[in-house]
């Protein structure tokens, strides 16, 4: 029996991507809420909650992105090269957004004067919107088959400025904001700040509806723009995942309405993950137009060594990550206001 190393690698990569969307995405979403929190005084407690929730974990959450990039160039090097070279404009912009977000967040934490906190806060919040948007446009370009194999063979602008990409960008920003609102509701609840709880609950509900509408619109756009993917999603093997995503999304709205703040974390994550895996399954095994996984995968020795190393690493990582989240989910809670 041969072990399907390439498939396992792809699945691990997709798991990493899911983790990045669910954890890193929520950190970006926190920045979105920071952006719309209002004036310095009015939004102070809301910003403090965001800062308090993200502070200890955002670096670990961010590593998922590096994990995905590295696995791409290790497991499917030619696809990585094709995507990076054709998509270099949105990826450069996303990279700059990542610099702005991380640095400004850390700077704001240690600055004391109002003007500094405002300046760094604005940079943090603005790049929290820009980064997921540009990463989303890249995903849209891939989903609609706009990245051909080879180096810089695709349209440098049209590959990410097109209906699917724009929709995917919008979807990325709103789902990040949605996830963040859901997580923050619970954090505020634990901290006993009932006005913040209500605020984030309302935002989560509103945002959840927007994400649902955008996803529906997305299906229409996909139908026109990427018919093959559309067919797979709506009638092929990806259909169950799509159904799961829709059901989890609807359940989240109900749970939010009924103030079940812990359970809604799970369903909200499932809704977003379902969408992501639906896309993956619908597109598999085609990675780029005319390029299937078995053609693009690295040699077996590389895949085996890397997967083996990751398996050993996971023995260290899983308990550590668990401990990190557990440490900051209990004990001293809520922002000092």
């Amino acid at each position: 029996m041969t072990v399907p190393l390439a498939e396992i690698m792809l699945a691990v990569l997709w798991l990493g991507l899911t983790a990045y969307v669910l954890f890193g995405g929520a950190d970006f979403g926190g920045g979105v809420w920071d952006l719309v929190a209002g004036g310095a005084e009015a939004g102070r407690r809301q910003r403090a909650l965001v800062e308090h929730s993200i502070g200890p974990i955002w670096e670990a959450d961010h590593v998922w992105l590096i994990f995905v990039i590295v696995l791409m160039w290790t497991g499917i090097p030619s696809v990585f090269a094709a995507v990076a070279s054709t998509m270099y404009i949105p990826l450069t912009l996303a990279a700059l957004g990542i610099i702005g977000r991380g640095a400004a967040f850390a700077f704001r934490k240690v600055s004391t004067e109002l003007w500094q906190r405002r300046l760094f806060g604005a940079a943090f919040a603005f790049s929290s919107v820009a980064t997921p948007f540009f990463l989303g446009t890249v995903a849209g370009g891939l989903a609609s088959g706009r990245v051909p194999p080879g180096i810089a063979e695709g349209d440098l602008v049209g590959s990410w400025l097109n209906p699917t990409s724009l929709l995917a960008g919008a979807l990325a920003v709103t789902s990040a904001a949605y996830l963040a609102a859901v997580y923050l509701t619970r954090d505020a609840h634990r901290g006993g700040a009932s006005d913040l709880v209500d605020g984030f609950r309302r935002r989560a509900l509103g945002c959840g509806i927007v994400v649902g509408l955008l996803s529906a619109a997305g299906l229409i756009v996909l139908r026109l723009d990427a018919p093959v993917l559309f067919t797979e999603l709506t009638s092929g093997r990806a259909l169950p995942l799509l159904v799961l995503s829709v059901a989890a999304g609807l359940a989240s709205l109900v749970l939010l309405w009924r103030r079940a703040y812990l359970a809604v974390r799970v369903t909200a994550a499932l809704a977003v993950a379902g969408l992501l895996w639906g896309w993956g399954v619908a597109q598999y095994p085609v990675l780029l137009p005319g390029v299937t996984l078995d053609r693009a995968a690295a040699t077996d020795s590389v895949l085996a060594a890397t997967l083996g190393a990751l398996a050993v690493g996971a023995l260290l990582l899983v308990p550590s990550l668990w401990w990190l989240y557990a440490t900051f989910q209990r004990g001293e809670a809520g922002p000092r206001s």
Partner: protein
Amino acid sequence: MLTPALIAAAPADLAAARTQMALSLGWHIIVACLGVGMPAITLIAEWRGHRTGDVHYRLLARRWARAMGVLFAVGAVSGTILSFEMGLLWPGLMGVYGEVIGLPFALEGIAFFIEAIFLGVYLYAWDRLPPRAHLLTGVPIVLAGVASAFFVVTANAWMQHPTGFAAEGGRVVAVNPWAAMFNPATPPQTTHMILAAFMVAGFAMASVYAVAMLRGRRDRYHRLGLLLPLTVAAVVTPVQIGVGDWAARFVAENQPVKLAAMEGVFETGRAVPLHVGGVVIDDELRYALAIPYGLSLLAHGNPDAEIMGLDEVPRADRPPVNVVHWGFQIMVGCGLALLGLAAWLGLAWARRRDLPRSRWFLRASALSGLAAVLALEAGWVVTEVGRQPWIVYGVQRTADAVNPAPGLVWGFVLVSVVYAVLTAATVYVLRRLARDEPVPVAPQERDVTGYRVV
């Protein structure tokens, strides 16, 4: 597997890509060194504070931890940019050889996770954990920092000494990822790099307190702030000089063209002198001080050993000699100067159990951080520019690896502006951190808990 079709990039775009890579690497490496060295030095301070109950040590540890919070954040984002740039700028390299160097990067990813996780706990749970447990949470940060430096440099070592793969017609057909990772250049390069990280962190941290002492703040807090990191750096320095010699011998054996560029040797010959200073004009090193037999001796341990000259390779295969030669001079110069400083401290300590009394010692210590960073950057210039025109030595040319998409120049302009702003903001914030919430005149009166870490 696919063979990426290569289209030539415009020369301006190639130059922009190289400068952008050098800028972002050169920036990241400084923060990365602090990220490797600072946690260890901070832990020593925390441990001393715990053992002796000396409040100054505990204050220092807290102060350093705050700075670490900022430095790790900028280290993480600047490192992320690098992983993007590997693909954005060098798809020709990554599309073909990405899988060959993928393993160390995957291992590095694990190390980054460990680092980020334990850093979160170390910084944010300081007052929630008992002192001993808190100290222990710092240990994985140190180990993971050293490990990530090791892993990433093995990838660079492979670019200097590519082994562990077989290629056919521009396609990689077989890989032994462990052999690629543990290539012959790995031992000297990784050792040299990790020691450099401790030197940079130690001297740079000491510099801050040397400046404060020059301004008259000579209390115990500032003396310890100078002494502890400076001692760490001073212990590492002599070892580093030895390892540098090992690295140089390795280059002499395996990259003779780079050695010739480092020393400005144009004609192959025996009993070659060591050249100090000088500039290359018209294929000749001028105005240099020559130490007879020096190079043959240092490179091969034999005063009569043969050294290959640049004349043996076509002009197109030579690296820019002046840059490499001066990079090497600067690194060695700074290294020897720092050795002098370390010896000064060691002598004074052996004699009087005290810092040297001279103001010149403080002045030299104040400059030592700068000298260590200069040596670091110069060393990387030697390694990377000396490898040119190859991106993978003897296997792939840099010009064949670059992204052929037009407009890389504009990306470079944008990235430079962002880095300029990032540099200004980082320096400003760190200076603020050093200045605000001044240490109380008599720290005993208020315990360290008044100083929140984050």
